[in-house]
């Protein structure tokens, strides 16, 4: 199974939200990284068929997804960035309704729903009204509905927002487990969500695809460029002017700073292994501190 985007554009009021995107996406987890307004959500909406591209084509196995219609949508599971709910429905009723609209038989919905409620630790809440759910519970409910029909193409827009670390780990492990014969596209600001599980990373900026490759290849670009060294607070101010600061953190009595630099930025600086957060900030320098 392969999803192909060919010269996809989306223009809103004269501004290109998605700019000439061409991609081939196969089985596996594809992490979509980009700052707010990069075009990730717009791109995902077009893949899901809820937003029409201004131009270009989206194809599944060589066939236009719009022409495939229900045949394509049957394969899809989508968690939008700000997922909606019906406050007066119970969790189970909500999932039952979405499952019905997805065309699932009643028995299958019940079975799958119970499995997923159990997996995402919402089993005790399934018969309670959604208006009593916390933000994290609602997010997990959103994940349940997205995965209910065992979709072959799973599109998740900021799926871990509101989840605690344990829940994020459960989610990450589950994704990893199901990704072998599925196309999973996941956009996130939390790079650790896709670290070590993404088969490739797609970086978007200003509507364009900046790069697309596996994590190792992308991180190799940053080898020799990520440094850490200790500073006292006065030096910190100076360093933020001289070098792009990725982040700083307390280490005992000292503050440590992590920066990008082609050469060693300080006497006691040492090279660090780059990670996805570094990669994200490398391509979005306007988000660096200082």
């Amino acid at each position, binding site marked *: 199974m392969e999803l192909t985007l060919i010269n996809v554009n989306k223009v809103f009021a004269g501004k290109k939200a998605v700019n000439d995107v061409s991609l081939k996406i196969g089985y596996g987890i594809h992490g979509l990284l980009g700052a707010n307004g990069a075009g990730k959500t717009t791109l995902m909406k077009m893949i899901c068929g809820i937003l029409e591209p201004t131009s270009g084509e989206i194809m599944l196995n060589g066939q236009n997804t719009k022409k495939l219609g229900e045949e394509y949508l049957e394969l899809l599971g989508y968690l939008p960035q700000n997922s909606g709910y*019906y406050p007066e429905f119970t969790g189970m009723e909500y999932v039952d309704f979405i499952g019905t609209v997805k065309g699932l038989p009643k028995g299958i919905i019940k079975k799958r729903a119970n499995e997923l409620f159990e997996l995402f630790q919402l089993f005790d809440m399934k018969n309670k009204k959604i208006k009593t759910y916390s933000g994290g519970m609602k997010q997990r409910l959103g994940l349940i509905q997205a995965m209910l029909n065992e979709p072959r193409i799973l599109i998740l827009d900021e799926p871990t927002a509101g989840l605690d670390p344990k829940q994020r780990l459960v989610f990450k492990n589950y994704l990893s487990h199901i990704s072998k014969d599925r196309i999973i596209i996941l956009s996130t600001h939390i790079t650790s969500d896709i670290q070590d599980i993404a088969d490739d990373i797609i970086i978007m900026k200003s509507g364009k695809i900046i790069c697309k490759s596996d994590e190792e290849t992308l991180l190799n670009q940053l080898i020799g460029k990520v440094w850490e060294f200790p500073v006292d607070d006065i030096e910190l101010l100076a360093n933020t002017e001289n070098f792009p600061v990725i982040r700083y953190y307390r280490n005992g009595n000292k503050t440590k700073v992590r920066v990008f630099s082609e050469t060693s930025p300080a006497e006691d600086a040492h090279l660090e292994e780059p990670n996805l957060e570094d990669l994200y900030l490398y391509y979005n320098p306007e988000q660096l501190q200082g």
Partner: protein
Amino acid sequence: MANMKIIARIIKFELKKILSSKLTIGALIISYLILIYSFVPNIFKYTFYDDDGNLIKRKQAVNYEKEFYKEYLNQVQTDERIRANIENLKEHYIVENNKTGFEYDKALPKDIYYEYYKPRESYFHWLAQNFISGPYPHILMIEFDELGDFYVHRQKNCETWFDSMNLTSTEREFWQQRANITKGPYQYGYYQGWNYINDSLDIVVFLVLAIGIGISGVFSEEHETGMDAILLSARYGRTKLVTGKITASLIFAIVVVLVGLLLCVVPILLFFGTEGWNLPIQVLDAKILYNWTLLKTIGIRIFMSFLSALAVATIALSLSSKIKKTTPVAVIVILFYLGGLFIPVERGNRIFQKITRLLPAFLSGRQYYGLVTYSFFGKVLTFYHMAIAVYILLILILLPLSMIFFKKHQVE
């Protein structure tokens, strides 16, 4: 079969969504309470006087009144009978004692008042209406030598009415034919049950308003809550879901009116009985020019109530599918529906009257009192024919449009 099951399940959920709105429930409760209040106090307060002037209450009063009507008034009201009844009353009436015009109990001997006048009070009012215009026609003002007999005067009234209405020659001919068909003499009798149902049907206006409010969010709430992104990316989001939503909305509209009708029709008929179902509509007012029985009248008003509900539901659905916010949809529906009731229809010219009469607020009303007709290529349609045609066409156009608007919706 599987498709029908899916749509049936969607309908169930859509109905739950509609009924989970506190505003909708509130509007329904208030409407039903107004409906019940329109007749229940009257039932509890229902009274009749026996021959000795003793007040009888409730069911006993109804039974006594029915017996009275059976003996004295369940008859064809010929000119001779009408004249005799009025002359009989005049014989005992002392004009000087009725200073305000309403003090019949002072102007008549006690036995005549309770035995003769009081049980026939509605009947005399009906007779007087034919002769004298205004809200309180005085039966004793009728001078047959001046005004002519009942049915002659009725026909004269019709001609005067036609003269005042600026009818085209085709329309005038149409109504003259109807005046001749309904010229009488009329069978009179006991019809209290149908009278009360007729009054209660005026309250349907509130039910239809509640329907408009309830349906205003069917599509727009999906946009507002962000559910549209999930639903439209689902397999049946642009097909069976839309069918389910529209079907659920129409079912809601029909059930709301049906429940309202059952709440009023059943208790009223249980209390007053079904007598009078086959009396001519002219027992309500002799000037009505429709050749209907009371049962047919109520049947037509019930049909028009359903039509009004479906029309408002359709309008709300089409607005909801286009406008992405529920509150403006509800406001537009309320203003459009209620606004019609405040339009001074009678002040406008004929075209203005004909157009405004077709507004949804008037559909379930007592349009049989009017002379509204619509002429097309020499053919004359009554208000009812025209309204049914217009609203069926409106529903057939707007419902598919609602589907198209939602199906083509882009989640931006």
